C-alpha cells in the first residue's frame, strides 16, 4: 500500500476512534456560489457527483470532523467509505477527497478553491457559504 494512502487510512481509523469526543454540530461548507442539498452532499463526497453546472466540485475531508461526518451525513463507517473510494478509483480513475487536518485548513481551502466543498466541526463565520447543518 502506498504511504500516502496508508496515512490517509490510518488517519481515518484514528478519527473514528475519537469520534465520541467531537462536538455535536457539523457544518457542510462550500466555496462561494456553490449550493448543495443533503443528497448532493452525499453524492459529492462519495464521488457520484463531480460537477455542479459547469463548476467542478472538489470535496475535501476534515480529519478532525470526519467520524461525525461519516456517521451523520454519509451514514457509513470509515472502512466502507474507504472501500467505496478504492473501487471508485479503480473503476472510474478518480481520487478520494484530499484530507485536511482541521477546520482552519478546510476553511482556508474552501475560501480559495472554486467548487471546493468541506465540512466543519465548529460553526463558521457568516462569510462562509454553509450549505448544510447536521
Amino acid at each position, binding site marked *: *500500500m502506498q504511504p500516502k*494512502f496508508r496515512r490517509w487510512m490510518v488517519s481515518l481509523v484514528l478519527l473514528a476512534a475519537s469520534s465520541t469526543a467531537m462536538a455535536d454540530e457539523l457544518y457542510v461548507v462550500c466555496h462561494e456560489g456553490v449550493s448543495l442539498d443533503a443528497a448532493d452532499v452525499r453524492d459529492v463526497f462519495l464521488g457520484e457527483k463531480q460537477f455542479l453546472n459547469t463548476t467542478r466540485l472538489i470535496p475535501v475531508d476534515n480529519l478532525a470532523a470526519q467520524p461525525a461526518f461519516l456517521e451523520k451525513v454519509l451514514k457509513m463507517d470509515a472502512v466502507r467509505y474507504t*472501500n467505496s473510494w478504492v473501487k471508485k*478509483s*479503480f*473503476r*472510474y*480513475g*478518480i*481520487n478520494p477527497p484530499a484530507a485536511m487536518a482541521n477546520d482552519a485548513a478546510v476553511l482556508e481551502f474552501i475560501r480559495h478553491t472554486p467548487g471546493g466543498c468541506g465540512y466543519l466541526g465548529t460553526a463558521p463565520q457568516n462569510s462562509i457559504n454553509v450549505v448544510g447543518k447536521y
Partner: protein
Amino acid sequence: MKRATDKLIALQFLAVVLPIAVVLLAQMAVDARRAAALEHSRPLRILADEARASYKTFTNGAADAVDTGTLGAQSVEALRTAAARLKALADRGESAGVAEASDVVQSLAATITRDTTLDALMSLRARIVQGDNLTQAIGDDFERRDEFVVRDAIASGIIQKRAVAGALLVTAVLSVIFVLATRRRLKARVEADIAVERRRRAELETISVRFGVATRAARAGVYEVMRDGIEVWWSDTMHELYSQPAQSFQPTMATWLALIHPDDRQIAQAAITTAMREHSPLRSQYRVVRPDGSVCHIASLAAVAMDSIDARPRLVGIDLDISERVEAEERERKLQLQLRDASRQAGMAEIATNVLHNVGNVLNSVNVSAKLVAEGVRKSKAAGLEKVVALLKQHEADLGAFVSTDSRGKHLPGYLGELSEQLKLDQRTIQRELDALCKNVDHIKEIVAMQQSYAKLVGVPEKLAVASLVNDALRMNAGAFTRHGVTLRCDFEDVPEIIVEKHKVLQILVNLLRNAKYACEISPKSDRQVVVHVAKRNGGVQVAVSDNGVGIRPEDMTKIFSHGFTTKKNGHGFGLHSGALAARDMGGALHVESAGPGCGATFTLDLPLRSPETAYG
C-alpha cells in the same frame, strides 16, 4: 448574328456556372482530404477503443477485487490485451500520450497476475488510475479529433454555403454586368435580326405574290414529286391547268398519269422516272384530256433538288399550257407551206420576167436584123431582073436581032451586069443579118435553157476568151449604139481564158452595155461614149463598162442591184439584179461606181478564172 448571340449566351452561362463550379470543386477537394484523414484514423481509433475497453474491464475487475479479495483471470487477460493494443497503437507512431499509456499499462501487465493480492493492487492503485486516465485521454484524444473533423466538416459546410452564396452573388453581379454591357449590343442585334427577318419575309411574300401572279399569268402549274413518287404536290394553278378542283382532287402519280392523253402517258411517265433516277433535268411535252373532253398541250420542265430535311431527291417542276403555241405553230406551218408555194410561184414569175427581159433584149437585135433583111428584100433589084426576063421572053424569036439592033436590047447586057453586082451586095447584107438573126435566136434559146437551169440543172461551163465574149455582146448592141450616136471604145488587155457559163456572162454584159447605151441616150451630152475595158484583177478577169451618161444618185447606189429597182421609163428592175446573182453564182461579183448625177457610171464585172462549180472538176 446567330453565332454572336450564341457566343454571348455561352459567355453568360460561363459567368453563371464558373464561380459555383470553382467553389464546389474546391469543397470537394477539402471533403476528399477530410475523408482520407478519417479513413486513416479509423483503425487507430478502433484500436484505441478496444484498448480502452480492455483496460476498463481490468479496472472493473480490480474494483470488484475490493469486494472479492482476488483479481479474476478475465481481468488479467483484459489488462494484457489492453497492453498489446496500446503497444500496437504506439508502434503506429501515434502521439506521445499513447506511448506513455502503453508504458504504464505494459508495466502493470508485467506486474499484475492472477495471484496479485488486493493489497498489491491497492499499492498499484495510483498507476492503475494513471493508466485509466491515460487510456481515457487516448480515447478523448481520438474523440477530439473526430469532433474536430466533425466541427471542421460543419465549418466547411458553412463555408461551402457561404462560398456558394458568394459565388451566386458573384454570378449575379457578373450577370448584371454582362447584361448591362451587352444589352444595348444584343438589343441592336436583335432589332437588326428582326429587321432582316421582316425584310426577308416581305421579300418572300413579294416573291410568292410574283410567283403566283407569274404562274397564273403564264398558265403554269407547279408540282413536286417526293419520296420516289409516293407523294405528289400540286399548286393551285396546276389544278386549274388540269381543270381539277383543289378541294377534291388528290394528286398522286396514278391520278396524274390518268389525266394525260393515253398516247402520251408512257412518255410522260418515262420522263419523270428517268429524271428521278438519273437526277437529270426533265423536258417533256404531252397532252392532257380535261374533264370537258378538251385537249390541252402541256410542256413540262423540271429539275431534281435534294430535300433539305431528309436529303432525298425531289422533282420540282412546272407545267406550261402551250396549247396556243402549238396551235400557232400549226398555223405557222400551214403558212409556211403557203409561203413556199407563193415563193415558188414568185420564183417562177421571176424566171419568166428574166426570160422575157433577156429575150426581149435579144429580140431587139432580132427585130433590127429582121427589119434590115426586110428592108433589103424590099429594096432588092430582083424586080428589074423580072422585067428583063419578060422582055427577053417577048423577043424570044428574034433574040439576037433584039440585042444587037433594038435600042433597049443594046442596054440589056450592061444592065444585067449592074443588076448582078447589086444582087450580090444585097445577098451579102441579108446573109450577114440572117447570121446575126440566127445567133440571136440561139442566144434566146440559151437564155431560156439557162433560166430553166435555175429550177433544174446548172449550165455547162466552158473555156472562153473574154474578148470574144465582150465582142459578142457588143455586136448584139452594135446597131443600137450606132442609131443613138454613142461612140464605143474597147480597151482589151491580154487576159487568160476563163471557164464560165458563156450565156451567164453574155447576159450580164448585154445588160451592162444596154444600160450604158440608155444612160448615154437620155443624157443631154452630145459626146456620148461607152468604154469597155478588160484587164486582169485579183487572180481573175475584170470587165468594166463605163459611160459618161446621166450617172447615178448616191441614194440609189445601195439599191441599184435590188430586184424591181429601175430608173428606166419602161424598165422592170430585173437586169442588174439577175446580173449580180449570176456573177455571184459564178464566184464573181458585180460592182458599180458613180460620182453622181451627170457624171456617168462604171459597172465592173469580176470573174474568177474558174467558176466554183468547175473548181474541182
